[in-house]
């Protein structure tokens, strides 16, 4: 299979392609996520637009070679704008039989498989559930297969670096990366720089990995291409000018919280309890102490939210993050924050449920929990991020609403957004709108539930302020004095006021816009959260086909934008794609009595563009 040296240095004839989807897959210990991360960086630097989707098992080191231990990383990149991580991979890199078994079904017909024959041992084939080696029979006839002994080639490539056999084999992922770099004409230098930096104290490891990348690349150059068209090129995309980086949802969220604390001129207090996939916010912020951030790993979810409320009470911006089951535990305390009217940001990085569900898989099934999921009439504001980069703005907005309206704000992200990355035009932190909080200090006629006439927000007087000593608590308090009150009329008035305060936020958020398409028409696709990418791409495709379809994407879930009802009234049909069984759908129908219809998926995987396109076509073309 290996070509001769004579043709080695000839530039291959490269086929120009608009966009490509590559999925790297292997054992969870194979370094797949690192490989994907490097390919992402390099591709971003090459000027392509891109989106990524890491998909890894919950087990840290599942038994080697098993299907449930397969870790994967998918990247979609191109010379056009890229909205999703791609429906079906064009290329599948399978570092063992289990990776092939789990991912083969997604590969498009005619797609390319790069398989490490060194890992296709009898033992591994059996573990993956293959009776026969698929590389040896015609079961892969629908695909193009490059079968190479990556393990052997890697060992050969790094033999001069003096590593142990185990360390040497760890370079397998870099050998593979080198080969894929060659396939798609990527520059190797960014990875070399990264390796040199990462293994500064162990240069032999850096050198071995670099040698592996080079060997994989050289293997590509010398590969005999029997059917042509194995090597490709993807031109740079049309992208707005500016300074860019790639960003994950977790990074954008964490930095957005810092921006939000700066914007409100409050110190940031973040408390969390380890839970997948929200823990990374705690990890990220705990490394940013120079910003004055206090991070607190609490003893449980309840202590996390309670300490954040305590910090807000003392004048900080109190923030906590978790995932569905953890949010459930925080619920009583969120009710306290609603009752005492203190600012609080609660981030829910949603995952597949109920109960433990599938912690590393994505879902958006906590919308009802966010909007309605508390005892009594206890309204709060709910906002949702639509993409990894959008987490930045949404975090700033959450801080604004929480402090301006003295209310908890539930910020909905999900496992996909948290871990996925995309290119981000880096904003100017100094240009972020300033919304400074001013604490109440005037003792004249003071009581803690004095309200602003416009926002209905109560006075925020923090402990330490002389003359404003006061008591608050979860017991109902008098509208006019703030003292405990069991008066029937007062409870009615306080309940109405708490509701009116949250409803009033609708006047202080932007009108709902149409992301793509027209105001009114045949059909609107209404989404929220991380379904933005697939819905938007689907609408692009459908409109190019001449369908009168528009995309509306809601950031402010509660209260809903003031114009949303009239906007939705302009469409003949409304379709609501969601990764749940119809939660936004229920809210829209109950609020507006609209005949909206749901398009629902709860497989732990994001929507494919084709699924949405097909669903719309079946409705419009029937």
């Amino acid at each position, binding site marked *: 299979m290996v070509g001769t040296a004579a043709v080695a240095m000839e530039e291959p004839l490269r086929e120009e392609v608009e966009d490509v989807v590559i999925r790297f897959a292997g054992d969870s210990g194979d370094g797949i996520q690192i490989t994907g991360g490097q390919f992402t960086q390099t591709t971003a630097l090459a000027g392509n637009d891109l989106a990524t989707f890491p998909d890894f098992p919950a087990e840290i080191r599942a038994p080697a070679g098993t299907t449930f231990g397969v870790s994967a990383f998918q990247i979609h990149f191109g010379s056009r704008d890229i909205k999703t991580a791609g429906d079906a991979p064009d290329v599948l890199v399978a570092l063992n039989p289990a990776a092939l078994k789990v991912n083969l079904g997604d590969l498009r017909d005619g797609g390319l498989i790069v398989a490490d024959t060194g890992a296709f041992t009898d033992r591994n084939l059996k573990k993956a559930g293959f009776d026969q080696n698929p590389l040896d029979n015609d079961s892969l006839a629908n695909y193009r297969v490059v079968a190479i002994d990556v393990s052997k080639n890697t060992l050969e490539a790094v033999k001069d670096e003096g590593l142990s056999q185990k360390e040497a084999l760890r370079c397998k992922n870099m050998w593979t990366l080198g080969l894929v770099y060659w396939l798609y004409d990527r520059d190797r230098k960014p990875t070399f720089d990264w390796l040199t930096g990462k293994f500064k104290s162990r240069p032999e490891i850096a050198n071995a990995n670099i040698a592996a990348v080079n060997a994989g690349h050289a293997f590509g150059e010398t590969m005999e291409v029997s059917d042509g068209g194995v090597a490709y090129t993807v031109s740079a995309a049309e992208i707005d*000018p500016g300074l860019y980086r790639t960003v994950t949802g977790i990074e954008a969220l964490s930095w957005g919280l810092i921006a939000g604390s700066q914007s409100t001129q409050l110190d940031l207090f973040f408390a969390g309890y380890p839970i997948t996939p929200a823990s990374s916010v705690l990890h990220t912020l705990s490394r940013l102490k120079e910003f004055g951030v*206090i991070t607190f790993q609490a003893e449980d979810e309840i*202590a996390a939210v309670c*300490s954040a409320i305590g*910090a807000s009470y003392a004048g900080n911006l109190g923030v906590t993050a978790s995932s569905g089951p953890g949010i459930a535990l925080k619920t009583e305390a969120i009710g306290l924050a609603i009752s005492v009217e203190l600012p609080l940001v609660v981030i829910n990085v949603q995952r597949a449920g109920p109960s433990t569900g599938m912690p590393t898989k994505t879902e958006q099934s906590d919308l009802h929990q966010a909007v309605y999921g508390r005892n009594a009439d206890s309204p709060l504001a709910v906002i949702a991020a639509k993409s990894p980069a959008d987490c930045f703005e949404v975090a700033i907005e959450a801080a604004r609403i929480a402090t301006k309206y003295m209310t908890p704000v539930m910020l909905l992200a999900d496992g996909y957004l948290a871990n996925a990355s995309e290119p981000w035009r880096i904003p100017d932190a100094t240009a972020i709108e300033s919304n400074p909080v001013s604490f109440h200090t005037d003792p004249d006629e003071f009581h803690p539930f004095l309200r602003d006439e416009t926002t209905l927000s109560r006075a925020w007087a*923090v402990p330490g302020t002389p003359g*404003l*000593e*006061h008591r608050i608590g979860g017991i109902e308090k008098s509208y006019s004095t703030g003292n405990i009150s069991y008066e029937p009329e007062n409870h009615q008035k306080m309940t109405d006021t708490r509701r009116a305060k949250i409803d009033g936020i609708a006047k202080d958020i932007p009108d709902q816009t149409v992301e793509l398409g027209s105001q009114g028409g045949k059909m609107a696709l209404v989404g929220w959260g991380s379904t933005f990418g697939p819905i938007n791409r689907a609408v692009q495709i459908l409109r190019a086909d001449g369908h009168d379809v528009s995309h509306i994407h809601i950031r402010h879930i509660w209260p809903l934008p003031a114009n949303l009802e009239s906007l939705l009234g302009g469409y003949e049909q409304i379709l609501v794609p969601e990764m749940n069984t119809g939660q936004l759908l229920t809210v829209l129908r109950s609020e507006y009595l609209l005949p909206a219809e749901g398009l629902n998926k709860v497989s732990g995987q994001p929507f494919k563009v084709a699924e949405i396109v097909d669903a719309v076509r079946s409705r419009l073309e029937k």
Partner: protein
Amino acid sequence: MNVQTPPEKLTAKDYASDQEVRWCPGCGDYAIVRAMQKTLAELQSPPEKTVFVSGIGCAARFPYYMATYGFHTIHGRAASLATGVKLANPDLDVWVISGDGDSLSIGGNHLMHVLRRNVNLQYILFNNEIYGLTKGQYSPTSRLGTRSPSTPLGSVDAPVNPASFALGCGAKFVARSIDSSQKHLPEVFTRAHTHQGASFVEVFQNCIVYNDGVYSSFTEKGVAEDNQLIVEHGKPLVFGKERDKGIRLKPGAMELEVVTIGKNGVTVGDVLVHDETNKLAATLLVEMERPAFPVAIGVLYCNPSETYDGAVRNQVELAQSKGGKPDLNALMRSGPTWTVD
């Protein structure tokens, strides 16, 4: 124009809020709130810097009656709220007020962690061995066999000893006092306040409605002196009407015994001297139970170490002193970036 007058010395009354107290007449909580107001007046604690945080239960109403900042939170979680308050603003003087159900049943986890972390606050546990506000169910400190609405045939689960629990959690300050001891209680509160770190105080509190007289065997006049051991650092563990009883290590065993001074050749020199920095001694003292032993009262253990809030602040200040002015723009531009023209 505001004319600033020199602040007058605050009295106990200045720490009382204008709210009508709603505990049952005769409740031990009245005495505790009075002792607290007296303590704050003695300390001249600035009311604006003093915060009382409570959970749920009879004791948890306490903050409403203090003319300081106060936060009546949710059941069992006062320690967590208070941790957030203290981390956000270490200048505040934070007192947690809680009961035996609030602290040791629903809030047991948070009590453990606030003590082990050594957050610089005072944790006052009103122990009346009963759930009062919910009408008399047995609590985690109720003695075996307690008859209550939920245990009509008597409780069958062993109680927890709060001071022993606190020591086990790694508390650096553990003390006990009695609601009616109006001289001793403010002294213990003052010691708790002075201690840097989490100070745990168990107050034996009488519930006149659901558990009246639960501590009378060692708190009533006439029996108190023979049944209480009031410990003081550096002084021999002597008690009794005649001051003739003492505590010593039983020869040849890792246990305490009561001895009578002047009998069988026992002198006051044979009696143990209280060393409040000795954790092993404290562990033995808190486990002494009537009728074989007197109940140990006072500062049983005090051995300060670095506070959690102090250590957290130190890490932040260290990071800030190293890095210079934090720059979000620089942070977002760290790592690989590229320019599109």
